[in-house]
């Protein structure tokens, strides 16, 4: 995926990665490492927490734990690749784009996801997909990519 991102975007100079909390954060770091190995230089990496941008924020119960949004670089005029582990409804991505726009005006926003499980509720399409996995709406898809253990993607069928 790192290679595909490098090929599609206009090179390392304007490239930045932003992981969507929480699943996208480890993945963004991983992709940054691979880009660094290929190019000798890692792109800047940030994180966004979409709790405050949820489309049900004002009606749902408050999210108990809001993580930090940390974008330590100016996104204006740059290519920003949003990264998440699983793409389903597209609502998280919509919220992440809105959050990103509050930090500046990127030249272009891309979307990279490890797994696309379909079932979209908004017109959102990923630019880079690791794997498309059919999951029916009662199934669960869990992804682990962290230092604690081996990488795993586990599909649990709904009953």
């Amino acid at each position: 995926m790192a290679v595909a991102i490098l090929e599609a975007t206009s090179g390392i100079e304007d490239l930045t990665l932003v992981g969507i909390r929480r699943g996208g954060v480890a993945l963004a770091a991983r992709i940054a490492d691979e880009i660094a190995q290929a190019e000798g230089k890692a792109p800047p990496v940030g994180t966004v927490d979409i709790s405050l941008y949820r489309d049900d924020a004002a009606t749902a119960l408050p999210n108990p734990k809001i993580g930090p949004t940390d974008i330590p670089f100016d996104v204006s005029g740059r290519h920003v690749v949003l990264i998440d582990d699983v793409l389903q409804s597209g609502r998280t991505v919509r919220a992440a784009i809105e959050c990103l726009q509050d930090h500046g005006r990127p030249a272009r926003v891309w979307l990279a996801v490890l797994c696309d499980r379909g079932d979209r509720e908004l017109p959102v399409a990923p630019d880079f997909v690791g794997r498309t996995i059919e999951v029916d709406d009662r199934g669960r898809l869990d992804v682990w990519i962290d230092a604690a253990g081996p990488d795993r993607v586990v599909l649990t069928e709904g009953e």
Partner: protein
Amino acid sequence: MEPFAHRHLLDIEGLTRAEVERILDTAEAFFEVSRRPIRKVPTLRGKTVINLFYESSTRTRTSFELAGKRLSADVINMNVSVSSVSKGETLQDTCRTLEAMHPDVVVIRHWAAGAPSYVASRVDCSVINAGDGMHAHPTQALLDAFTIRKHRGTLENLIVTICGDVAHSRVARSNARLLRLFGCEVRVVGPRTLLPTAVDSLGVRVYDRLDEALQGVDVVMVLRIQSERLQGALLPSLREYARTFGIGSKQMALAKPDAIVMHPGPMNRGVEIESAVADSDRSVVLDQVEAGVAVRMALLYLLAGEATESPAMGEAG
């Protein structure tokens, strides 16, 4: 984690230590929002916050107003001291009027202790106490705790001296309660006429001498001396107060080398605090102001979510 268990914030009393920590942790997330290029998030779009102020207070009202606006709520300020009261409206009628406007949160500052709790029992929305009489000022205590935690790294087991007009201070009362939740040693010092008669109920230690009270402390909280106190003969003169209980560099030297000094504002320079201290790098007065917006954003966020059938903070049981 379960939803926040309170509908109102009326007092620190009734909050558990874990709940205080949750408010402060949530405030950390909002702290960053105020430092962005675009200092606004859409979280409370469509929610209405009414600031109902029976006492004039520019900074607290402004802080709540900013907090609401940065969350995209619609914020209305009602300065009642110059409207309904002078026209003779009772608090109960004001509650009915408010109710008809369907707000999601009412922030109330009132000269009478207990007024926020009265309003909370009569309106169908969340109520935040922004200071009532000599009773409580919970958001000030929370923003002070946030500031202390940021500077000292922890709230646990610190020594904090509250200096000045403790008897009339809702700020002192709420702070003492909160700090005791974290095992802090809370000392109060001031002229005997300005110390509460029942200080022991707060779990604080009372000092008559400033130099003893400041020995080895982590935090010095300076309260504002109100010149009205002179009229009640509680204080002979501001100059005498400044000489005996004013915080200057010499006094700060008795505290820990990295101790911080706080003031809820507005400061009387040269009375309770000398300019040399107020402008020193130990002063966190402006950090308190910044923390205030973040903490109030956190509270609006936690309370303005879907209405839940849960007890108010600060209510018994």
